């Protein structure tokens, strides 16, 4: 074992405080140290994942106070899976943007990498923490680093996007605090496990209202309709890899939070149906909106929102198969959408507006990037033998097993739209003549390596999904086991 869960939070924060100092001495350290920290976190999470298969969930307390009193971090198969995924993606984003802004003096770059590192840390914190107020703090960390990253490019309309995000984020944090306080006033605790344990003591009315406030607050981060107006703007205006980070890391942590609420904390039966309804509406609206987009990143953003809706639907099915499908979808979406964002931002590089028409004829000038984009698009449509197919099959099987035929029909119908707009882009890449004015920018070596490795992962998972299904299966079992979670935390003897 390399360490305990607390190091996931502490080491990046320590690094964040140290980097400004080292940056004064050695400029390149601001790029390198975040990468080292993220690699360390990845090693840590992988070794912990290995460790928990033998010993079961790892619960760590902070400051030596046992859970209801102190804050605790939980590294269970479920949260560990998500944390590992996020850190892995964070590392990829770091590697992809390693050469970012090389020619500019180091100050913006310094901020970029620290903000990125803290974005990952905050998301991992949301996933690992066992305390609801602590979760709020981490959500804010993610939020502020998100605002900073979004407005990173000063020339674009990025401030506008960041302001919208901040506006919604403020409303979210207000309602989150309200919900937390309602729960605290009734149960006198902030620990998720103890809240779950004591939840029957709360009156139904307060339960419902605090859940609604939670859904509003977390739904804003999870980009559910109609709370997702900020998301496409942020995806469009943030630097390319940050779009991937949002789709792969931030949203996932919000989804985690909402799932933890509904599955563990609250014992309301209607919540899952609400999940299905909200998720389905999000899915439909986002995919139909994506159909006529003119900008590539915006299209990807709506597609990403739609996929998240689908994840919500899968969680809403409520069976173990449903959770399995949702987690599989989360995994696939994380790698595939990252690949699409990575390769997509090279296809429309150097363009201010990033219109879809700028990709015309890029297949000839950026062959590898184009092929990778195509693989990503095919995978996200769910064509076999790419990774996306298996998650789609899993979600449909789960729905069919729960006798939700209408759901299947709707999902499949909307999927056709998804196929249409992705294919339009691919056709443009390969079959439309390139405009003279468009300049192709060759990807840098580090970006190329990242994209190719993602492409390989997609293919490998597509041909051999068993690589990942075992872990997901354990994670799904873990999430279903509410009493186990409560017992693990409240009876810790440390």
């Amino acid at each position: 074992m390399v360490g305990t869960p607390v190091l996931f939070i502490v080491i990046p924060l320590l690094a964040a405080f140290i980097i400004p100092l080292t940056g004064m001495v050695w400029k390149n350290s601001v790029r390198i140290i975040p990468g080292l920290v993220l690699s360390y976190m990845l090693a840590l999470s992988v070794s912990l994942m290995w460790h928990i298969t033998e010993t079961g969930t790892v619960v760590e307390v902070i400051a030596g106070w046992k859970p209801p009193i102190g804050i605790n971090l939980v590294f269970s198969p479920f949260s560990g899976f998500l944390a590992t995924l996020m850190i892995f993606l964070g590392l990829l984003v770091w590697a992809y943007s390693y050469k970012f802004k090389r020619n500019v003096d180091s100050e913006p770059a310094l901020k970029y990498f620290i903000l990125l590192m803290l974005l990952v840390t905050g998301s991992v914190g949301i996933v690992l923490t066992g305390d609801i107020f602590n979760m709020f703090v981490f959500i804010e960390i993610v939020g502020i680093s998100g605002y900073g990253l979004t407005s990173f490019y000063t020339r674009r309309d990025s401030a506008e996007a960041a302001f919208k995000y901040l506006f919604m984020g403020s409303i979210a944090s207000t309602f989150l605090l309200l919900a937390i306080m309602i729960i605290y006033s009734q149960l006198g605790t902030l620990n998720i496990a103890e809240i779950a344990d004591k939840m029957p003591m709360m009156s139904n009315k307060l339960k419902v209202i605090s859940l609604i406030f939670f859904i509003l607050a977390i739904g804003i981060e999870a980009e559910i309709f109609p709370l997702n107006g900020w998301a496409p703007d942020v995806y469009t205006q943030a630097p390319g890899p940050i779009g991937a980070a949002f789709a792969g890391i931030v949203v996932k942590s919000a989804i985690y939070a909402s799932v933890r609420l509904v599955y563990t904390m609250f014992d309301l039966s209607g919540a899952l149906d609400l999940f299905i309804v909200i998720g389905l509406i999000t899915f439909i609206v986002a995919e139909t909106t994506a159909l006529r987009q003119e900008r590539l990143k915006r299209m990807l953003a709506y597609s990403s929102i739609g996929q998240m809706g689908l994840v919500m639907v899968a969680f809403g099915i409520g069976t173990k198969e449903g959770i399995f499908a949702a987690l599989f979808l989360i995994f696939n979406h994380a790698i595939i959408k990252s690949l699409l964002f990575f390769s997509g931002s090279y296809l429309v590089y150097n363009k201010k507006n990033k219109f879809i028409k700028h990709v015309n004829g890029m297949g000839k000038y950026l062959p590898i990037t184009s092929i990778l984009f195509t693989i990503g698009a095919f995978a996200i449509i769910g064509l076999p033998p790419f990774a996306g197919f298996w998650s789609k099959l899993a979600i449909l099987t789960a729905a069919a097993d729960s006798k939700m035929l209408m759901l299947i029909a709707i999902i499949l119908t909307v999927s056709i739209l998804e196929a249409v707009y992705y294919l339009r882009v691919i056709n443009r890449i390969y079959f439309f003549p390139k405009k003279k004015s468009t300049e192709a920018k060759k990807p840098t070596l580090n970006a190329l390596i990242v994209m190719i490795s993602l492409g390989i992962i997609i293919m490998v998972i597509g041909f051999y999904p068993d690589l990942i299904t075992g872990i997901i299966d354990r994670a799904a079992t873990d999430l279903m086991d509410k009493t186990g979670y409560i017992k693990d935390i409240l009876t810790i003897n440390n």
Partner: protein
Amino acid sequence: MEKYLEILNYTIYGAAILLLLIGLYGALTKKSLIKIVLGLSIMDSGVHLLMISIGYLKNGTAPIFSPGHENELAKMVDPVPQALVLTAIVIGFGVTAVALALVIRLYKHHNTLRIDEIKNLKW
């Protein structure tokens, strides 16, 4: 008389909720970015007030074991909301600072502070 005092008991809640709603109203209707940020700030304050008043105990004392008051444990108000509010205030401050910085950037970029004119990103 007792009954009216009963209502008075809830004035703090009422004030806090009113503050929250006023802030929200400002944030949702005012066109100026600065006013929106102010609205969000007011809303935050309302929530903080609400939080702190939840922990209040009638005739309670501050949760400090000052010399000579070491054994007044049962009378102390709940310290947890106070600690939480401290955190929440600091976070609210950070968000407001970022918001104002963004407003400065937006003003430079668009030369206006009206939120309905800053709509380059849509659909």
